[in-house]
């Protein structure tokens, strides 16, 4: 028995996947298989991560165009090269889209076929009972006075009562439980597809926008009012939710002493908004991570700063500018901020000012710095320019920088101004007065219709994953045959198909005991099978294979073989004939997951461990997860 058995199982690696034919169809299939392979998905995922790095290192056109133009000025030779490589708009770059789409395709191409396979597995019937149940990892036998048919019927109803899925045959009952594992797996896969689809939906129908809002101002959600507007592919300006938001008041509080001095404690933005024109105005207290949600659109508070107010009188005595100018913080501990004032309609010459705003001005080592982020002593210092601002040319210009190519600095000593103080400009150019300050907030407006579906699918995917890890599939086989003394010999065998959360031994022992007591049986001591040894291990492995045979696409073939085996004489010893196809399968599984702990998966897996322990069941766990469509 042993010799024939071993030779029949060792021709171990019949590679089922033929090398690709070199015809165009073959190449296409090969390319598709490469694209949908997990290796490619991993590489793409890694590439995606690397590709996002420049997006956080370099200034981005979509987020901060002013910083991009500053970068151009600072690196005149490098910037055009980076620009040509789309490195200033990474997330809109063609190569970024290529990576994303390939990853999408790769994942979808992997998950979709697997989903269909899992549906098949979840609907599968238990396999036929192996011939010798005593060779299974767990077995028990007893004698009963009941005739075999009744013993089997009783066993079937007992197992059915425990919600096993049943299959019966001539002299045997096989039962399987734990299909929830497959259901969990299925949920995970479908949810993963839904997650991908949700992300896609968000990209096509969603939009993102930014707006800087000075206290006292309001804006409507329409493209002209948005500083940055990034619509999805199918979003038109008319699709924007027609709400209006006004900032009444903004307050921030900071730690005043101790090791975390200058750290912000709270931010509160008192908003007044209307959901649509003509609707009543409502108030909302906007805080960080507590967005205002209107019409499914979320408005987040993402930044704040100061907007000093100025009045500019030109050389003719006309007031040509009066308003608050947002300055951008250049450091966080004192919120020192920089900004520019452009006065294009001043006469006799256009005026420009580059300013620094110091919320808590204090002289330190001959320099004026801001020592605290709150406006305790708000001062502003200005450099004055005259000439041509370049605004009348029509070329786009950032409101945060001056184009100095047509300007010259006016000879006026920069001196810090306190609120209410003025600076008279030389050559009769006029006068600028610093009249006060306001605060501004910056808002991120996002509409992502895929967000909720993505959340739901994410949770479902996790639940499915947990389910598939927690539930194990286990099989119980019962055979009943007339015994030598007129009584009936009942054999019970058990097999857990996965090593997830052990404990099947106990369950099996209880089941076997229940069966025996229900049928008034007398226990028989288990025969030699409890003894570990190469031959028995081989049989056990084969038993496991046989049990799994029905799983494979080759299930029918295997069953045909099994039927043949049954019709053969008992003496052939290799009682679990349909080993071949499964052996092949096991081996592909081994090569598929070479890096995992697959101690038992070398060409002679059978000799590796004790009966029913790790190798057999864990191999099968692998093959359960790994089996490929080929």
């Amino acid at each position, binding site marked *: 028995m042993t010799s024939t058995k071993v030779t029949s199982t060792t021709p171990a690696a019949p590679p089922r996947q033929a090398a690709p034919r070199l015809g165009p169809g073959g190449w296409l299939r090969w390319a598709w298989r490469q694209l*949908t*392979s*997990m290796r490619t*998905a*991993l590489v793409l*995922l890694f590439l995606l991560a690397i590709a996002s790095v420049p997006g956080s290192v370099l200034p981005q056109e979509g*987020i*901060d*165009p*002013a*910083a991009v133009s500053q970068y151009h000025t600072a690196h005149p030779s490098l910037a055009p090269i980076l620009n040509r490589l789309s490195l200033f708009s990474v997330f809109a770059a063609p190569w970024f889209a290529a990576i994303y789409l390939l990853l999408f395709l790769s994942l979808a191409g*992997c*998950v979709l076929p*697997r989903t269909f396979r899992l549906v098949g597995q979840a609907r599968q019937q238990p396999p036929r009972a192996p011939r010798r149940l005593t060779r299974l990892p767990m077995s028990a036998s007893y004698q009963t006075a009941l005739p075999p048919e009744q013993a089997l019927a009783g066993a079937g109803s007992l197992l059915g009562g425990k919600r096993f899925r049943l299959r019966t045959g001539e002299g045997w009952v096989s039962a399987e439980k734990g299909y929830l594992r497959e259901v969990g797996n299925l949920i995970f896969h479908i949810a993963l597809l839904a997650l991908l689809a949700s992300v896609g939906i968000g990209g096509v129908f969603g939009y993102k926008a*930014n707006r*800087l809002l000075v206290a006292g101002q*309001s*804006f*409507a959600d*329409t*493209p*002209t009012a*948005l*500083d940055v507007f990034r619509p999805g592919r199918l979003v038109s*300006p*008319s699709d924007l939710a*027609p709400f*209006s938001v006004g900032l009444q008041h903004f307050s921030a509080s900071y730690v005043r002493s101790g090791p975390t001095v200058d750290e912000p404690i709270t931010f509160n933005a008192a908003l007044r908004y209307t959901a649509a*024109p003509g609707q009543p105005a409502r108030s909302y207290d906007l805080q*960080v991570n507590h967005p205002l949600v209107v019409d499914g659109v979320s408005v987040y508070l*993402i*930044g*704040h*700063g100061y907007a000093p107010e100025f009045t500019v009188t030109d050389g003719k005595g*006309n*007031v*040509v500018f*009066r*308003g608050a100018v*947002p300055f*951008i913080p250049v450091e*966080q501990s004192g919120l020192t901020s920089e900004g520019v004032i452009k*006065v*294009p*309609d001043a006469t006799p010459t256009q005026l420009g000012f580059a300013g620094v705003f110091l919320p808590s001005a204090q002289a330190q080592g001959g320099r004026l710095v801001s020592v605290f982020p709150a406006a305790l002593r708000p001062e502003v210092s200005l450099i004055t320019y005259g000439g041509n601002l*370049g605004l*009348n*040319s*029509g*070329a*786009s210009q950032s*409101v945060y920088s001056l184009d100095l190519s047509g300007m010259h600095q006016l000879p006026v000593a920069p001196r810090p101004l306190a609120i209410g103080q003025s600076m008279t400009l030389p050559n009769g150019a006029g006068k600028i007065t610093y009249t006060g300050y306001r605060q501004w907030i*910056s808002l*991120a407006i996002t509409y992502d219709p895929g967000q909720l579906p993505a959340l739901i699918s*994410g949770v479902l995917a996790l639940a499915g*994953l947990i389910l598939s890890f927690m539930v194990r599939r286990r099989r119980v086989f019962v055979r009943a045959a007339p015994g030598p003394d007129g009584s009936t010999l009942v054999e019970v065998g058990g097999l857990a198909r996965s090593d997830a959360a052990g404990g099947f031994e106990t369950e099996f022992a209880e089941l076997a005991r229940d069966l025996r007591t229900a049928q008034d049986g007398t226990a028989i001591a288990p025969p030699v099978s409890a003894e570990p040894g190469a031959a028995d291990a081989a049989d056990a492995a084969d038993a496991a294979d046989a049990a799994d045979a029905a799983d494979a696409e080759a299930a029918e073939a295997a069953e045909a073989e099994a039927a043949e085996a049954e019709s053969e004489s008992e003496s052939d010893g290799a009682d679990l004939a349909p080993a071949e196809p499964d052996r092949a399968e096991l081996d592909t599984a081994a090569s*598929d*997951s070479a890096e995992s702990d697959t101690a038992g998966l070398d060409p002679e897996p059978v000799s590796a461990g004790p009966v029913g322990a790790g190798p057999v069941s864990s191999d099968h766990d692998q093959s359960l*997860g790994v089996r*490929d469509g080929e």
Partner: protein
Amino acid sequence: MSCSARLPAVTAAAAAMLALAGCGGGAIGADTPASSGQSFVGSAYNSTVFRAGGRPAAPDISGTTLAGQHLSLSAYRGSVVILNFWGSWCSPCRAEAPDLTALAANYSARGVRFLGVDIRDDPVSADAFVKSFRVPYPSLNDPSDELALAFRGTVPPAAIPSTLVIDRRGRIAARILGSVSYDSLRVLITQVTRG
């Protein structure tokens, strides 16, 4: 390696990466505000023209002009109206202002009315703009874009500047995104005045 071998692990890794990536922009004040006031179209010329049969009706907007008078668009019904959305801070608006002023001077006598909508501006700067360019027509003050919003569902002024040509029956005949030139707008005015 089979596609399915380590799917859950890969998914978990992907989720972790995305979560990490999502952490980046969370802190308030950590990044500069995403604002540059550049929602105008530079030199790109982008116009939409409707045939007489398919013109959407313009909403009846009304408000206070920079000079402090109440004005509504419907008061101009019966005339071809050039509605120009602008701001004194916007470079292309300043570039097109002389052409608009010249057109207004030449076509007012032929019954074409001009009306401005001053967007996201302070009244002092807007007045200075009007004086600099000697703009002869009134402008409604729209600091919070409410008037622009009213055009939602038609052809909204999706950029600054935007110019709408409204026919005698109060329907939008054309929209130009970006700076207009004397000749481009003159052609449209002639078309709409005839039809």
